């Protein structure tokens, strides 16, 4: 596990702006640091490694709400490789961009207490309460909170909609190149 020391209090405006900079392609940042390694495109490993176990659980519950489709047959976040894909992506990001992500997840976890004055953590809330908490981030008057929301949301969307199992949901026919034809 890599070392990390950023306390919540050190989440500067600049840091949040960095997070906010993550847009559609933020997700795509996720390749290993060297190009040759990226060319090998190691598949997501057997378990998350960028995020600590507790952060992984927070991330998973966030992603579950962010990509909730309400469709009975939709593949769930936990039965796809959504989280390992996000983790693998973040492993390859420049530390200047990812260093604050774990701390940001903990802010989401304590969001109900910090912003809603509720004695509860995000992961202990019912789904409807989780959605209300996320709406608070999305519609906050603080640009930093909105940008942090977008960064995490876009990671979730990348992780989920890059899974082939999700493509039928949206009617995407998929790449023309089959797995065996591609290198990467």
């Amino acid at each position, binding site marked *: 596990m890599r070392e990390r020391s950023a306390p919540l209090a050190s989440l500067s405006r600049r840091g949040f702006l960095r997070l906010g900079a993550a847009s559609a392609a933020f997700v795509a940042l996720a390749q290993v640091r060297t190009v040759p390694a990226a060319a090998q495109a190691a598949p997501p490993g057997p378990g998350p490694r960028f995020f600590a176990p507790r952060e992984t659980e927070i991330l998973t519950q966030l992603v579950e709400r962010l990509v909730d489709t309400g469709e009975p047959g939709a593949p769930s976040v936990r039965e796809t490789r959504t989280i390992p894909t996000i983790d693998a992506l973040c492993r390859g990001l420049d530390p200047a961009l990812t260093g604050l992500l774990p701390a940001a997840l903990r802010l989401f976890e304590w969001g109900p207490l910090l912003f809603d004055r509720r004695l509860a953590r995000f992961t202990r809330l019912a789904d409807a309460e989780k959605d209300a908490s996320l709406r608070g981030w999305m519609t906050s008057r603080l640009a930093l909170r909105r940008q942090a929301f977008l960064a995490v949301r876009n990671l979730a969307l990348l992780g989920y909609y890059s899974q082939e199992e999700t493509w039928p949901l949206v009617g995407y026919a998929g790449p*023309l190149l089959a797995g065996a034809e591609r290198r990467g």
Partner: protein
Amino acid sequence: MITKLLERGGDLVERADVCVIGTGAGGAVAAAELAAGGRSVVVLEQGHHWTKADFTQREHEMLPRLFEEAGMRQTVDGAFTVLQGRNVGGSTVHNLCYSFRTPPAILRLWQQEHALPELTAEALEPSFQRVEATLRVKPILETEVNALNRVIRTGAEKLGWSGFVTKHNREGCIGAGYCILGCSYDAKQSMLVTYVPKADAAGARIYANARAERIEVDGSGRKRVLGRIVGHGGEAYGSVEVEAPVVVLAAGAIASPDLLLRSGIANGSGLVGRSLHLHPSVMLAGFMEEPIHAYRGIPQSYYIDEFIDLEKDPHRGYVLMPIAGFPVLTATQFPGFGRDHYRTMRGFSRMVGLLALLHDRSEGRVTPGESPAKPRIEYALTPDDRRQLSESLVHIAQVLFAGGAARVLAPYWSEPVELRPGDDLSVLAARGVREGEIPLASTHPQSTCRMGGDRRHAVVNAFGECHDVPGLFVADMSVFPTSLGAPPQITTAALADRTAHHVLERWPRLGS
């Protein structure tokens, strides 16, 4: 020879007649023409040398391979995403192949208002011809117009608006539609498969993973380009040093001024990094009743020029262009989360996108950031440009509805607007376009080392040579004196061709 320095290892020390920095639409052309003209040429490209075998058609794999900052480059306020290539071939590897010559009215504007009388269509004709022949520019066939573009065309024609099927630079296209993720079939005639191989065949020594970080000029005019061998995340593995009497800087309109400013050269005008134009764009999504799979086929073939008349006013206007995406890119452009967001995504296969691309007068600025990989980009819309983009939203919606859309979505981050046929579209103009409220993007940053005859008001002269530093040329979109008002690939390449031939004509005096 194209050398991947990350795989070779060690430092790079080279000498040449000319050092070209960048392999996009400007650098690759300059390198090929100079090498073919007999000069020894070293080419430095900070990105990797990917080829068609690497183009997997998967978004999460291709975006970090092909885009600067993996596609997340943004203005400092986060309002504009700025997409630029970062690989051998530059942005031409991911662009969508619109192939336009410089609009005549823009050339006249540059001649008259920027003291460039020699920059005529006649003077550029040989360059246009060489570039178009090499890139195999040709009209897009009617049979190649895909479902998305047919919808847009139908809408424009019903409204009686001006539009046309454009030219492109593809050969043997099978219509897969993954142009923006790199062509897996080498049908796109990008620099990667045209001018870069041409430069290679002519003897240019091309180095991938070599980032130029400083240009030094000694008293005799000799130049040293210093830099580092870098991985995709910017980590350094070795040093780069190239000595040459002539340097052609073609790193793009963000990196080129950043490099000049870091080097402290060529800025007697104080204009290096200033005058940034972005061709900013805003997009609405329409939803058809039936699936049309807009992402299949040539993504952009129809072009609506109803709202730009450069002959009447060369300073303003906008064009409308179809746009399609794949699931991840599409998902991140829409607001909301959970079931609300999915309700939009459920229409993915029925989605038709149309964007307005503005011929902007707004001027931003590039300055060095915390590292050479992350320049600071500042840009804000002028009231008139904001007004035009706001007006464009109405016109986009009109086209989408006329083309058959059953619903149109304006993806404001907060409280997106959904419209049905017959709804009052003025709500869009009233809501308008404001930075940070709706996704805005740029794929054409330009004008940060602008060309002009008066050294007080320009960085480079009519041949791209820096007024302050003889033998240092700029050959990318940085040199456009104003916003181009049209897709820039051919103009960039033609001006680089002209620069290269100018260097050849002035040799050996220039090299001494």
